[in-house]
């Protein structure tokens, strides 16, 4: 099964995606990540209002097997979290780029997002 890597997103090496619209970015984890984690049973999201630094552990995804940290792919303030994941964590498995999104970030000014991966670069990383 080949992994989905939508062309309109940016990616972090740590397997998060961002959908950037102006200074707002929606963040989730990639299809490859959800497939590796399997059976997501709980998602712990950051508090709204929390200021995140790129690379900081900011959420936790629990599968049956283990708990895994999720890292902020860019710096910014959390302005919204996906409350649907509290009741339906499996959305991360079924719709990683849609209803399974994690949180929205108001991107910090003047940050360097060139470290983020293009779809092709992420594809090369996961060997997809």
């Amino acid at each position, binding site marked *: 099964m080949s992994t989905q890597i939508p062309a309109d997103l940016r990616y972090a090496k740590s397997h998060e995606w961002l959908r950037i619209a102006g200074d707002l970015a929606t963040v989730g984890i990639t299809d490859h990540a959800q497939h590796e984690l*399997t*059976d997501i049973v709980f998602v*712990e999201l950051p508090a709204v209002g929390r200021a995140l630094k790129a690379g900081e552990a900011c959420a936790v995804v*629990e599968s049956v*097997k283990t708990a895994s940290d999720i890292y902020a792919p860019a710096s910014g303030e959390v302005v919204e979290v996906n409350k649907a994941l509290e009741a339906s964590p499996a959305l991360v498995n079924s719709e990683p780029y849609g209803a399974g999104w994690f949180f929205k970030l108001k991107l910090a000014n003047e940050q360097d997002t060139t470290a983020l991966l293009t779809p092709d670069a992420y594809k090369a990383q996961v060997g997809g």
Partner: protein
Amino acid sequence: MLKRTPLFSAHQRAGGKLIEFGGWEMPVQYSTITDEHLCVRRAAGIFDISHMGEVLVSGPSAEAFLNATLTNDARKLSVGLGQYTLLCNERGGVIDDLYCYRTGPADFLLIINASRITDDVAWLEQRLASFTERVAVKIENISALTGAVAIQGPRTPGLLDQLFPEPATAGTMVSKPSELKKNQIGRFKFEGLLCWVARTGYSGEDGFEVITPDTLIEPLWTQALKLGHPCCLQPCGLGARDTLRTEVCYPLYGHELDENTTPIEAGLGFFVALDKGDFTGRDVLAAQKANGTSKKLVAFKMTGASPPPRPHYAIFAEGQKVGDVTSGTQSPSLNCGIGMGYVPPALAMPGTPLEIEVRGRRFPALVVKKPIYSRPA
């Protein structure tokens, strides 16, 4: 260097995700833990358990030696019958938990934990050295020459009959494996070689464990998957093995059991035969049975939305830390967090509220009766 079972390349070919377990490189899952778990509950799964140890204890005084060394009463075993039992130190602490089968009038087969093979064999040999009838007992560790699979689930009896179409030639003399009753073991032929088939398991479902010469395990695995297709047999990894056994509260060595924990504390008093005469650890175990213990193993369920409990998380009651989680997971059958852990006896009654601390936050749980999950009648 991690050890590999004879099925290692079969696991690779089947897409198994390999992890380290007790010094072995073993598959944790092939599809997902939940999928494999539910497959065993509803149909059938096959697990590689070749990493487990096998020790033969034989001779005219083998029964007396085992009765002086293990907690359960080996005299209750007729030929072809097995029992769960424990190997304890002088303090009653558990060196290992194991299955002991009587395969012949003076022959016993012990199935021991992979991580405990060296310690168990050393302990057995040391006990034998001080056993008066030692010349009439032989201990033989055949772990390296032996492979094993567990075939578990409600649809397995018919599959075992297809795998082993000829009648048993030793042990319980049944005409086919499905006639074995729980804890019975029989010797059957597969591709002309002899295997032991026991009706037992670690999943809480009906099922079998098959112990074979190591060269036979891969053909057996392949044939089982081929014949098992109609009953939805899936290869299952250690992940599902762990969630299945946690739901039914079977202890796992290194989690619920260790050399500083006794069978009485672990709630395994049923497997300690205090009436059979002296055995290693008896004094401590008898005193604990009479006077109680300072800790007791409980099962618990998370009562609301929470992260799954995990081993080593702290257990709280009324604001005080009272113990640690020994095993914990999300239950695929019940779809909630479940676990086990040691608490003071006053907190061991079903219905007692506890809290489990996860990353600095406490989540409510309730002590429940064991097993946490029972298969529907």
